[in-house]
Structures are given as structure tokens and as C-alpha cells.
């Protein structure tokens, strides 16, 4: 016990001593990019031992709120801030895409082991409660050669507000006007059907336990837990499976028409080899931060994250940014008002 106390005392003393020269930056926001952000902060700290970045993964909404209240230096979100939110903020806030993620449909049908094919329309109708049986003609037509049972479809969605839900309903709303008017786009929505599971683990747990169920989870989650998932038809008509390559392809397709503020949804992106349910995740910064010393350090970090940092993305299940987007962001970063 005494030893532990001694070590603890030493650590506290050490940290306290270092604090004099250490630059501490705090941020808060989305949970979805948390694994790669914490990896980045740790790796960056190895390179620059005087920089310590703390990130609280509270959720996108909380990140935006804390940034607006200026209790954190940077925010992070999975869905871009609305124009209204930007107006209400005390200063101009800029969006910087950091990595890409994807959301995949997972299902559990007894005796069906092959990868099922879906279209956006079919997924929208399932989540609207219009397609209720697995042997619905719309599904059997897409999956010829697979014998689908006549059992009910149990729809599983996320119960808590989540960036995953945002990406999922954003895609379904783009495909189906009916879904857009009845459900709409938000981090949590009023689902017409189904049951809610809390978190990716709960959704995948429910789907794996419930015969005849369908759900959606982040690609990383499906990869890490080796859950098989369906392919989704993209705009070019191909049935595309989510991979690091097909997600980056979606971003590359969007880069051509990237708006200056980077607030862009890349679900249902055009082009070949594109996985249609992909999305950026963003770090939010004030254009003219109050603390100039912190801003300088943050800018250096951002430059590192967008270039060298990208190599950590694939191993964690995220897709790295395409070159074109990184170039645009570097130009935008240079415009931060640091003096």
C-alpha cells in the first residue's frame, strides 16, 4: 500500500512538474471516431511530449454544445452542424473532416449464410415497416438463388442519439422521399417500427440472438466482431460491400464538389466502386480561437493527423481521407486566425 502511494505521489509530482511546460488542449464530441482520436493523441504525444490532448467522447450533440459554450477548445461531430447552430455560436466555427466511416446492414436469418443484397429502397421500406416478411418479392428479386423464409422481419435500431443513426437515416432519406417526410434526418428519430438497442454492442447482440432480425452497425464494429453484413446497391447500380477502399472511394467521388465549409453528406455518392452508406466525421474549430498558443499547437496536430496520422485509420476500421480532400483541408487550415 505504501509503495503504491509512493508511486502515485511520484506520478502526481511528475505530472505537476511537467504541467508548467505542457500544452494541454481539451476537446469533446462524437463517440464514433473516439478510437482513432485517442490513438492519434497518444501517438502525437510520443512525438511531441509537451502536447497533451484530452478528448471526452460524450456524443456529437454534447460536443457541439460544449464548443458553443467554449468550455472545450475543439468539438467533434458525426453529422455536420446545422446553419442555425452555426449562427447561434459565439464565433465562426469551421468543419474539418478527419476520417471516414461506414454503416452496414447486419441480419440474422436461420439457414441463410450468404451475403444478402439490399437496395436503399428496400432498406427504407423495411425501416418504415412496409416490408415485413423476409420473402417479400422486393427482397427475393434481389437475392435470386437464396431461399428466404416467410418469417417476420424484426427491425432493430439504435435507441440513443448516435452518429451511426444519423448516417443511416441520412442515406435512407436520400433514397426514399417517403422516409424523408415520415422519419427525417437526425441523431435520434421517431422510428415507425422496430425495437431500440443501446449502443452498437446491443444492436449486434440483439440481431445475433433474434432469428429474422435486421439491424445496422458501424463498419468497425462489424469488422472487429466478425459479423457478416449485407451489400448495398450504389448509384452506379453495383452491389457494393463496405471496405476501406469502397468507403474512401465514396469520399473521392464527393471531393470533386466539396463545398468550402466541408459540410457535406457523402451518403449515396455517385461513381463506381463506391459504398453508399459512408460518411465523414468532423473536428470543429473556431476560425479565430481565443487562446492563440493552443491554436498553434492544434493546427500542427491537425496537419499531422491529416497526413501522417491517416495511416492509423485502416487498422482501426476507418477509411483514410482521399488526397484531394486533404489538400483542400490544408488550405483551409492555413486560414485559421492565429494572431
Amino acid at each position, binding site marked *: 500500500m505504501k509503495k503504491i502511494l509512493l508511486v502515485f505521489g511520484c506520478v502526481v509530482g511528475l505530472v505537476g512538474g511537467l504541467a508548467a511546460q505542457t500544452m494541454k488542449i481539451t476537446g469533446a464530441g462524437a463517440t464514433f471516431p473516439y478510437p482513432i482520436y485517442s490513438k492519434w493523441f497518444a501517438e502525437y504525444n510520443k512525438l511531441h511530449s509537451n502536447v497533451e490532448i484530452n478528448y471526452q467522447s460524450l456524443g456529437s450533440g454534447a460536443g457541439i454544445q460544449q464548443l458553443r459554450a467554449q468550455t472545450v477548445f475543439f468539438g467533434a461531430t458525426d453529422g455536420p452542424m446545422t446553419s442555425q447552430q452555426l449562427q447561434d455560436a459565439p464565433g465562426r466555427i469551421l468543419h474539418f473532416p478527419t476520417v471516414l466511416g461506414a454503416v452496414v446492414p447486419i441480419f440474422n436469418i436461420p439457414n441463410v449464410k450468404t451475403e444478402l443484397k439490399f437496395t436503399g429502397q428496400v432498406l427504407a421500406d423495411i425501416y418504415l415497416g412496409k416490408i415485413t416478411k423476409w420473402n417479400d418479392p422486393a427482397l427475393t428479386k434481389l437475392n435470386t438463388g437464396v431461399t428466404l423464409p416467410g418469417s417476420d422481419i424484426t427491425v432493430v435500431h439504435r435507441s440513443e442519439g448516435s452518429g451511426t443513426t444519423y448516417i443511416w437515416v441520412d442515406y435512407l432519406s436520400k433514397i426514399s422521399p417517403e422516409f424523408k417526410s415520415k*422519419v427525417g434526418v437526425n441523431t435520434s428519430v421517431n422510428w415507425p417500427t422496430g425495437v431500440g438497442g443501446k449502443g452498437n454492442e446491443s444492436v449486434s447482440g440483439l440481431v445475433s440472438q433474434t432469428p429474422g432480425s435486421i439491424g445496422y452497425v458501424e463498419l468497425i464494429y462489424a469488422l472487429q466482431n466478425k459479423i457478416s453484413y449485407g451489400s448495398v446497391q450504389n448509384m452506379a447500380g453495383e452491389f457494393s460491400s463496405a471496405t476501406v477502399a469502397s468507403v474512401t472511394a465514396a469520399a473521392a467521388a464527393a471531393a470533386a464538389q466539396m463545398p468550402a465549409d466541408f459540410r457535406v453528406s457523402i451518403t449515396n455518392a455517385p461513381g463506381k466502386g463506391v459504398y453508399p452508406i459512408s460518411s465523414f466525421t468532423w473536428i470543429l474549430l473556431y476560425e479565430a480561437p481565443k487562446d492563440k498558443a493552443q491554436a498553434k499547437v492544434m493546427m500542427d496536430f491537425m496537419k499531422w493527423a491529416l497526413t501522417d496520422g491517416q495511416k492509423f485509420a485502416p487498422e482501426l476500421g476507418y477509411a483514410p481521407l482521399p488526397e484531394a480532400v486533404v489538400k483542400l483541408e490544408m488550405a483551409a487550415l492555413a486560414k485559421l486566425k492565429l494572431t
Partner: protein
Amino acid sequence: MKKDLGFRIGTGVFGLLLILVVVGIGFELTRQSLLSIQKFGLNFWRTEIWDPVAGEFGAFPFIWGTLYSSILALLIAAPIAIGIAVFIAELCPARLKQPLVFLTELLAAIPSVVYGLWGIFVLVPTVRSLETSLPDSIRAWALFKGPPVGLGMLAAGLILAIMVIPFTASIAREVLKSVPIAQREAAYALGATRFEAISAALFYARTGIVGAVMLGFGRALGETMAVTMVIGNTPQARVSLFAPQYTMAAVIANEFSEAADELYLHALIEIGLVLFIITLIVNSLSRLLIWTMGHGARKAAAPAAEPQAAAA
């Protein structure tokens, strides 16, 4: 004398502090939910829509879900908890007593997220197989309607019951222990059987036992994590035990961190206010119940209790 005064003032301040905290919570909850209170008024209590996209909010499904799941838990837990308490306090062989007391207290110490995980992986599949094994004729009843998902009111009620039992059982046991031995001896002296003697002890301790049950009820009302993991999180008010539903505490925990829109946030905080008011009402009612019972008991027991006190 002076010390006495200081002591009085000191404790008095602490007592007042408690009142201030309660009033402060109520005030702050109201202040933070003004937008929603102004927009929806009393309709907030009875509308069944919860649509963050359209900005339409009503708390009825959550109020219903909270009360339904808590009452269900109470109905399951109360008899079992009282049974445990009676067994430990009155019938249990001495050797078994300590382990049993230890185990009930251990149950109370398990974090609710652990109950929730157990719920997802053990309880929900069990409930689902129970649901699928029911004949269609029974499934047609309103109480058992809905797809057999496993998640839903029944799973929530069961998990709440398991979580509430140790609390109610522990307190009920303490209450039974405090029944004077003379009561039991008197019962035996009158030729009562063991069952009759225990009934007499239970009757004597009834206010305390009701208190124990109500404490469990209060806990069930506010339980969040375990419930949200098994209830299905669907804002709909249904009679069916199999239907996925939602509770107030669960919706706050689930949606608070992502509620970026002002009205949405205010609606969520108003749910907190509603939960606060309902808890207040439930607690007042249980106080009232205990008070009337105690009052009646004192009147009835007064002549009998007098000589006993003298003897002691």
C-alpha cells in the same frame, strides 16, 4: 445549554439544506425546460408523439412505461422479498442465516449495467423462448400481443424485480427483527401455530414492511441502465407485456448527449421534471399510507401495548 443551542442550529441548517436542495432541483428543472413547457403545456403529459426531427414532444409513453414497469416489478418483487425476509428472520436455521444475508446484500451491490448485460444475454432470450412457446390462442390476448422479440415490458419488469428484491428484503428483515420477542411469545402462549405467530409478527411490522416495499418502488422508478438495455426503447404506450416500450429515465440517458437542439433539450429536461414530480407524488402517497396505517395501529394497539411497556 449553549452547546445545546449550537447543536440545534447546526443540525437545523443541515435539515434546511436538504429542503433547499429539493426546491433547487425543482426550480432548476423548471427553468431549463421552459421552452418545452411554454410550447406544449399540459399536453406534454398526454401526447404520445416523440419526434426529435419534427420537434414534437409528448411524455405519455415514458410516463406509462415507467409506472407500468415499476408496478410490474413491485408485484413480482414484493411477495418474494417478504418471503425471503420472513424466512431469514423467522425460520432460517442459524447456520444458513449469515450466508443468506450476505447474498441478498451482494445482490444489491451489483452495478445495474451488469444486470443489463445479463438481461441482454440471458433474460431476453429466455423471455423470447417463453413468448414463442405460448399458444396462439393466448398470444391473441391484449396482454400478450406483439412480435416475440424478448425485449419489452416483461423483461424490464423481471429485471427490475430482481434489482429491487434485495433492498426490500433487507429492510423487511430488519423490520421483522425489531418486532419485540414478547409479541411472538404472547402468540405462542395463546396456543398459536408457527404460521399464526409469524402472521402476528408481520401484522405488527406492517408499516415498516410497506415502507420497505415503497422504497423498492422508488428505486424501480428511477432505474435507468438495466431497464434501457432490455425494454426495447420504443416510445409507445401498450398494455401488452411483450411490447417494447420506454421509460423516462431511459430516454433521458439515451438522448441527452446528442440533443443539440434547444427545444429538444428542454423537452428532455421536462421529462426529468415529470419524473421528479411523479417520484414526489409516489413518495408522498406512501408516507400517507404508512401514516394512516400507523395511526390506525396505534389506536387499536394502544390498550394492549400499555401493560407490555410496563412489564418491560
